[in-house]
């Protein structure tokens, strides 16, 4: 099987082994049943597979330092390890990858240098490292424009609708009908971008069992059946000061969550594309059209080529982003506008490419393209849902313009 090249210099042996293990997990635990995931409303099929991945294979320990029971991956190696792992998860089921992406990114805020928060690691790491159950986190990011409530503050053209009032030793947090990035209906902890009346921006952690945390019904979605999302309302939720991870000057670190989350999404999309490629290659070899294998018809070959081209470029770009995140000394801080915007650019490209090429693959598989049985339409819906969840391209375009043209009023 020809390979989609990627920057191999920085891949560790550990990452290679992990990828192989996940691939085997996918083939054994996911592939036999994934055609039924969409109707698996109770997660009877999904949960056991996710548990194997998150708990038994330890994916939910990945972000945490060794001293708190985590995997303790060397920071330099973390981005590429993450990418190799999530490619494989994405091949099997983008939904589980997406749950992981949110959870992982959320905790980079307290688990990674230079902003390791020892107090919170001590408190939260055990939940993820010692539990025998799947534990997830849900990100609540500001959005461009809003349908309910009102804006408390504004960050890069996105409205923050979560109001945080600092008090004595605790903060009170309010927010109405918030749409999390992921996992709103299942998360154990929320990572929330909020603002005070005076316009100070903060990032806080909110355990879902606190009083006043209300979740709506699970949202009916295009795809990502493995991720249950729901709108979340925060009604006078009281959190201790220590859960305010970043505020004031430190709010700059929020950019890092974007960088990590986008890297994860890219890797998942690349995985979904690679699995589609595999299915398509098989189909185009065995399907006979006009007397020859489909792939030998040039008019179809141009579509096949388009699929391969986008996968190849997406993979290169994704590894490049990983490389950028692993070498701050060369490329700048992971939370800087330069790096987080680079991440967004690559994220926009890769998510778009995934949605596009899986759609093109469907073109060649005709009715087997849109039948569940053909085994690619789920990827198509899943990556489209990831793309939407990332917030759409408009706010990214504004960020790009802001950075490269030094726009001041966008």
């Amino acid at each position, binding site marked *: 099987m020809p390979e989609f090249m990627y920057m191999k210099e920085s891949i560790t042996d550990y990452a290679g082994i992990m990828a192989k293990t996940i691939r085997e997990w996918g083939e054994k635990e996911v592939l036999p049943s994934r055609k039924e995931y969409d109707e698996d409303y109770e997660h009877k099929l999904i949960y056991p597979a996710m548990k194997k991945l998150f708990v038994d294979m330890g994916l939910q320990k990945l972000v945490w330092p060794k001293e708190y029971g985590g995997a303790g991956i060397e920071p330099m190696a973390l981005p590429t390890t993450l990418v190799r792992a999530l490619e494989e998860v994405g091949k099997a089921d983008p939904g589980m990858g997406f749950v992981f992406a949110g959870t992982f990114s959320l905790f980079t805020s307290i688990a990674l240098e230079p902003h390791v928060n020892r107090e919170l690691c001590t408190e939260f790491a055990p939940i993820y490292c010692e539990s025998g159950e799947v534990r997830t986190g849900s990100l609540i990011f500001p959005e461009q424009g809003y349908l309910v409530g009102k804006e408390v503050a504004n960050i890069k053209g996105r409205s923050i609708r979560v109001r945080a009032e600092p008090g004595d030793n605790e903060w009170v947090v309010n927010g109405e009908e918030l749409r999390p990035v992921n996992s709103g209906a299942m998360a154990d902890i929320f990572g929330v971008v909020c603002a005070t009346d005076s316009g100070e921006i903060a990032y806080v952690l909110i355990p879902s069992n606190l009083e006043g945390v209300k979740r709506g019904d699970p949202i009916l979605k295009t795809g990502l059946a493995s991720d249950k999302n729901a709108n979340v309302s925060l009604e006078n939720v009281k959190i201790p000061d220590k859960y305010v991870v970043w505020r004031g000057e430190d709010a700059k670190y929020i950019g890092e969550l974007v960088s990590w989350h986008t890297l994860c999404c890219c890797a998942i999309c690349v995985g979904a594309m690679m699995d589609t490629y595999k299915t398509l290659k098989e189909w185009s070899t065995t399907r006979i059209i006009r007397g020859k294998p489909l792939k030998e018809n040039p008019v179809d070959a141009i579509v096949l080529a388009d699929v391969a081209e986008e996968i190849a470029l997406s993979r290169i770009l994704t590894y490049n982003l990983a490389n950028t995140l692993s070498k701050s000394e060369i490329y700048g801080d992971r939370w800087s506008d330069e790096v987080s915007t680079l991440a967004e650019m690559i994220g926009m490209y890769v998510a778009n490419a995934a949605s596009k090429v899986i759609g093109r693959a469907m073109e060649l598989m005709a*009715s087997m393209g849109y039948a569940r049985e053909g085994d690619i339409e789920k990827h198509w819906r899943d990556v489209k849902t990831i793309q939407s969840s990332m917030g759409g391209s408009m706010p990214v375009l504004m960020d790009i313009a802001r950075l490269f043209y030094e726009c001041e009023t966008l």
Partner: protein
Amino acid sequence: MVSIDDFARQKEYISPMDGQYGPIMRDITDNEIIPNRGKFDEDWLDHKYVEPIMKDILVDKGSLQKALFPTDYGGLSFNYLEYRPAALLARIFEEVGRGDTAIAVATGVTLWPLTLIGVEPLIRMDLLEEFAPIYCETEEPMFGMMAMTEPQGGSDIENVDHVRGRTIKTVARLEGDEWVINGHKLWPTNSGGATKGVMAVICTTKSGSLDPNDFAVIYVPAKTKGVRQGAPYKKAGMAADKNSDIWFEDVRVPKEYRAWSPGLDAEYFRSIGSWGCFGSIGFAAGELCDTCQILDQHFSDRIYRGRPMKEFDAVASVLADIAVDAQMARWALYEVAHTLDRPDLYGNSWSPAVEARIRGTKLWVVDTAVRDTEKALDLLGRYGYDRAWALEKHWRDEKIIQLWLGGRQLNQMIVARWFYKCETL
């Protein structure tokens, strides 16, 4: 709020019955389809929500299953070009299509097989008389079906010029005054047990033959012995349309049920491509207008910097591009309808020129609809994937319209063959 009426259509082409049927279809769409369409995905097997709507369209309110039967036989007599049947169908398809394209296709396909024997100049009055009771003397919706695709090499069937019927494995054998049909078809709209009316079955009278005389279109009432429809497939969208396998085992129908005759069946069969693509254009054009409306609603309600977000000019520019496409699509729809309504001006529906133009237009309109629903989803950000906004449903459905009828590639080949006189494609 922008509505379908804001997009111009060619006033001189409109059917004289437009004023009567337009409002009926609009009522069904606005009051039955749109309020319920969010439930169709889970309704894919039972059609608990879908069936009553189809009954209103085909029987109670629209009576559309009678459309192509003469009034003498209890029908509506839309057979005649003076009534501009295509322009009327354009109106029906776009109205229903903006609600749900699957309901629109279930409607369209009920009439589709009959276009080959029930629209001027292709009228087989004897067959219309024969089949009229099935559709006109009932209170039940009687879906119809075009049984074309086969397990291997799907669109090869429609690729008449190139494949010339060679790959058809459904064989019709003449025994005395009866055709005996054996074969296996896949995917027709209104299969999965839905069709109770008449199906047109594409057969060969001689397996593997390249001779157009062996290409046969034979009508088979659904209740005929030996016809078996499988269970509906699960698919990415279009839950209101059922598709399944369908088997024909020693199915016997009278000799007269062949549409026309050796040679003419193959020749006229192109008109099935023309009418099928025309329908697809109608569904998509309606959906595009609805996409504009949903976007208008979303971005009127969504606030950005204290104003409705549609006033944010970057968003407005995307909305504008989609509105332009919807206008182009609506014009194209009525242009194609007029092409079918005026064979005296533009040629018959089975002429290669007409088929090439209509297939090309389908290619454009549906590709555009796919792309525009993608843009629309992207614009909605985290509401894009949310089924509550219905845009993602349009996106899933349009993709299916793009893939059927031979998909993009077959249409490209048919266009290239005619416009560029390609001889070996």
